[in-house]
């Protein structure tokens, strides 16, 4: 997987490059729009990560120009603007995604992964998900551990499905809110934690290997090993 990272802040560029490389991506980095355009035309990338505040050009117009030049790869937009404006939302509908600074590295990695997967995924959707001894039947909306049916509410099932789809990877609270409830909000109360806590009470009953792990300050992860 080749990533083109366009970010002018040297320090942030360094961190992103390091964590993307650790996650197994091949990263090329550019610090301004001119270099980014050249690098994008020279070789094919699977995904672009573009900061909107570039020194020589607005990130959005760079993306639009690259699209006109035939860029097909998805773009993850990094924005230091707080309220994301309409043009970015418009791009989101076109298959791209955005993140506002500051963000959790885990969330950045998850969004990159989702974008790449969305772009390359086959049309056939699995009807079953399996993580260790946890199995989800997506048609009957039933979850079971070692064959024993878990008594989940529809909402809990959706939450567990989201965790399973991201099994082995960290998901942050804002990712859960976005993925399960479809909202980009930041509640200052522990609403998500209570949902996870309840789900854990049903999934990780005593005597079983605990699957849902909390990473404090980051989010949650469903263990797949």
């Amino acid at each position, binding site marked *: 997987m080749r990533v083109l990272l366009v970010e002018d802040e040297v320090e942030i560029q360094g961190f992103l490059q390091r964590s993307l490389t650790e996650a197994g991506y091949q990263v090329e980095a550019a610090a301004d729009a001119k270099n980014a355009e050249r690098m994008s035309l020279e070789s094919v990338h699977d995904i672009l990560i573009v900061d909107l505040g570039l020194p020589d050009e607005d990130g959005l117009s760079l993306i639009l120009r690259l699209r006109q030049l035939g860029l097909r790869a998805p773009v993850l937009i990094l924005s230091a603007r*707080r309220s994301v404006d309409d043009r970015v939302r418009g791009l989101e509908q076109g298959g791209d995604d955005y993140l506002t600074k500051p*963000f959790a590295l885990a969330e950045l990695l998850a969004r990159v992964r989702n974008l790449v997967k969305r772009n390359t995924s086959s049309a056939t959707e699995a009807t079953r998900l399996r993580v260790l001894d946890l199995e989800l039947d997506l048609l009957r909306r039933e979850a079971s551990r070692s064959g024993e049916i878990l008594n989940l509410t529809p909402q809990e099932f959706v939450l567990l499905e989201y965790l399973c789809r991201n099994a082995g990877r960290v998901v942050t609270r804002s990712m859960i809110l976005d993925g399960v*409830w479809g909202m980009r909000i930041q509640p200052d109360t522990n609403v998500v934690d209570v949902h996870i806590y309840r789900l854990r009470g049903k999934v990780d009953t005593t005597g079983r290997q605990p699957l849902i792990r909390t990473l404090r300050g980051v989010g949650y992860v469903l263990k797949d090993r």
Partner: protein
Amino acid sequence: MFSKTVKPMRSAAWRISLWAALAFACGTMVVFIFLHQFVAHDIQRRTDAWLAGEAGVLSDVAERTPKGVLYRRIVGEVAELASREIPHKRVDNAGLNDSVFFLQTAADGSVGLWVGSGDGSAHLAGLRNSQIVPEIPTSVHVAGFDAPFRVVCVRMNNGGQIYLGLSERDQLRVLGSLRLRFVLLWVLIVLIGSAIVYYSTRRVLRHVQDITHAASRIGEAQLSSRVPTTHRNDEVSQLATTLNRMLDRIESSVHQLHTITGSLAHDLRSPLTAVRAKLEMSLTASARDEESESIVSAMEDLDRLTEFLDQSLDVAEAKANALRLNRVGVDLDDLLRVMIDLYEPSMSEKGLRINLCSAGSLEVSADAALIHRMIAILFDNELRHLRASCTVTISLSRSEDGALLVVEDDGPGFESEVLSQVFERRVRGRNSTGHGLGLAFVDAVVRVHGGKIDASNRKEGGARLTIILPLAAP
């Protein structure tokens, strides 16, 4: 807001023309009353002069004519001649002129000579009832006549008296027809005048209304458009120019605010991102628990700081009406159900109940992200401030003004000292753990959507927030 056309009866043009008509009517009426007085006085003066002259002549004739057989005829002829000088005189059934009479009394008061209609007894009775000073014209009422007579009396040498009377009927008729004509003309002129005033003020005020419409659209939509100006350099076009200059200033300050908040956000966010990334990487690298504990707490502090920064800037922009809206149709019923679904576990964990009373789908035209955050803040507030076993009731209904959303609880309610300023920044209750931005943000979001918000305490105890949001166009 002001886009409704004002009804004619409630317009300023209507009031102005009403007052103008009233002033005009009163003025002309006063002028007419003076004129009327003057004319009436003048007619009476002329009548009196004629009467005095004629009475003098008659008494002269009566004195000089020998009291013989011809006396009655001669004096009668002279009186008859005098009465013919009166214009518009009327005659009674017997063909006699009834607007003038001549009466000569003997020294004992009995009728000596009578010229006029009837036998003169009614006139004599009328004369006796009024106290007549010789030589001074006096008005006398005579039974059987509507109009009084103007009578002048001359004392004769033989002790008798001569009375010459002229009916005031003609004078009154002239004045009556003068009044009638005036009233008709007056009504006509007042009507025409007020119509002219109404249409001219309406024309002027229509420009003002155009400006109002344009200005209200600017407030709701965008700051770059301007109100229409005319080429005439009158007060209205000055108003338009002033408004446009004001809009220039507002636009530039809003632009400045955007630039400041934008660069502030940017300048703070980049280092925050770097710090957070450093912390996150060192968290995965460090295996020691006590170290990771402090890293995690630093990250949580950082997230809170970011959130505070976001919300402060949002409230600042919202208060300045500078929030950018991306309006879509938002179904409040759907949204509330999803939100309750999200918050219900936390609430029941804390021993709170939450109820939704909704009549079904209700779509408003709003910025989805802002509305999501607004509801989340309301729910967060309930979650933070209520004690166990309280109930939160959310009601959603359609009202005349739009979608009516009421959030009530049976908790402690707002503290009385903060109730009046609960939507101000940094205002919070004594026991509040928040940073006092939540409701200020909610207020700003509601207002920027053209809605209304009100906070109160319920009579039975507990807080009530009432929010009205405009419905989506059907």
